[in-house]
């Protein structure tokens, strides 16, 4: 019987190696796999490249991972925001590398990696600093810039519901980057608020089919917020 549920955070995090490219779902605090990020902090992998929309806030989660000097490089669209104190300190000290990518280009590069598309021509950023040094081409009278696929070794995803096949749904705006990141990594690890233990999700409402998912950890929300994760 197919069963992608794992019983512990340690099992969920097994095998993540130093030097990995880690895709982190979420937009701001919403849809962020907080428990899995805490699990990654505990797991110990370092020299990571993190791909996420934001560069973390406060001193928890991604910010904590950076503060522990475990992140060599971050690829994001919105590094500097209210509370991004850890990132800003590391960046101005030259202790973290940054690649800024327009948010839509970031999403499309991740989607391309999951879809087997090596590169694509987009109109975004043409004529700006973020297109400098990149191949440009006029197609049907408009200028486009070539952007390449952005794949991960690991994706950490927050779902709302999951079944044993790894099929997922998301809740409201917590969907955001999660479904595309789930497609783009060699190892996709999911924390889910609810489980469908007796059966499977309705086939018409599944957003991420289980083919993209390797491991699912059940992390009820209350547990997560009160205790910082099931293993914390």
């Amino acid at each position, binding site marked *: 019987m197919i069963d992608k549920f794992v019983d512990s955070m340690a099992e969920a995090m097994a095998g993540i190696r130093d030097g990995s490219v880690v895709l982190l779902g979420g*937009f701001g605090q*919403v849809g962020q796999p907080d428990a899995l990020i805490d699990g990654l902090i505990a797991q110990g992998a370092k020299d990571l490249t993190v791909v996420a929309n934001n560069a973390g806030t406060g001193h928890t989660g991604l910010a904590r991972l950076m503060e522990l000097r475990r992140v060599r490089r971050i690829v994001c669209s919105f590094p500097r925001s209210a509370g991004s104190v850890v990132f800003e300190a590391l*960046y101005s000290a030259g202790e973290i590398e940054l690649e800024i990518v327009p*948010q*839509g280009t970031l999403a499309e590069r*991740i989607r391309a990696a999951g879809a087997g598309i090596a590169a694509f021509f987009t109109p975004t950023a043409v004529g700006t600093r973020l297109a400098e040094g990149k191949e440009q081409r006029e197609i049907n009278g408009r200028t486009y810039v070539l952007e390449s696929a952005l794949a991960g070794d690991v994706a950490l995803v927050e779902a709302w519901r999951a079944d044993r096949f790894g099929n997922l749904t*998301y809740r*409201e705006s917590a969907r955001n980057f999660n*479904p595309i990141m789930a497609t783009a990594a060699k190892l996709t690890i999911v924390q889910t608020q609810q489980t469908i233990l007796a059966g499977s999700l309705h086939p018409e409402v599944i957003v991420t089919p289980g083919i993209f998912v390797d491991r699912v950890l059940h992390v009820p929300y209350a547990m997560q917020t009160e205790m910082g994760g099931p293993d914390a």
Partner: protein
Amino acid sequence: MPDTAPASIAALDRHGIAARIARDIPEGWYVNLGIGIPTLVAEHVPLQREVIFHSENGVLGVGPSPAPGAVNPWLINAGKQPVTLRPGGAFIHHADSFAIIRGNHLDLCVLGAFEVAENGDIANWATGKNDAASAVGGAMDLAVGAKRLWVAMEHTTKDGMPRLVERCTYPLTASGAVKRVYTNLAMLEITPRGFVVLEMVRGLDFEQLQRSTGAQLFHPE
């Protein structure tokens, strides 16, 4: 106050600019609102005029802020503020959300800006070459992707320096993208000639507006 004194210029406040923009948005448009003054536009579109607000983080049909105590932690807009969902709304993922943006499906995007140039260039994300960690977010995608890009901003900086200029000095968000600018002083259209003044606030004359502007202004033809 006498009509001729400078103080009599009926400059708009932030809500005034937003309300002026809201008047120009017809029912049925799909609209993305940037952070700042643009976000206020939604408050000035009457709920019975159905406009579908899109947010980059995968929300179509963004509604007003929730009442205190009724905040849904799973539902935010691109500015990371709690919002509600209006009837007809839908949730999509980020690649689909930016397919909507880049694919020319939005009728309108309203952004704030540091500078707008007479050729339609917009600079709204970084203030200098040293500011390498600036947050671009979705601004570049929105600026090139929407059917219309309107800018909402103060006509000048706090120091009185013009924001409507011949050429942007700050790093560009997009080139040749802006169609209209709504400021606290005027509404201007960008045409092949440059800035054309369509409206000014009460008490302001064309010469005064020109003095606050860093590029040549034109009357409508």
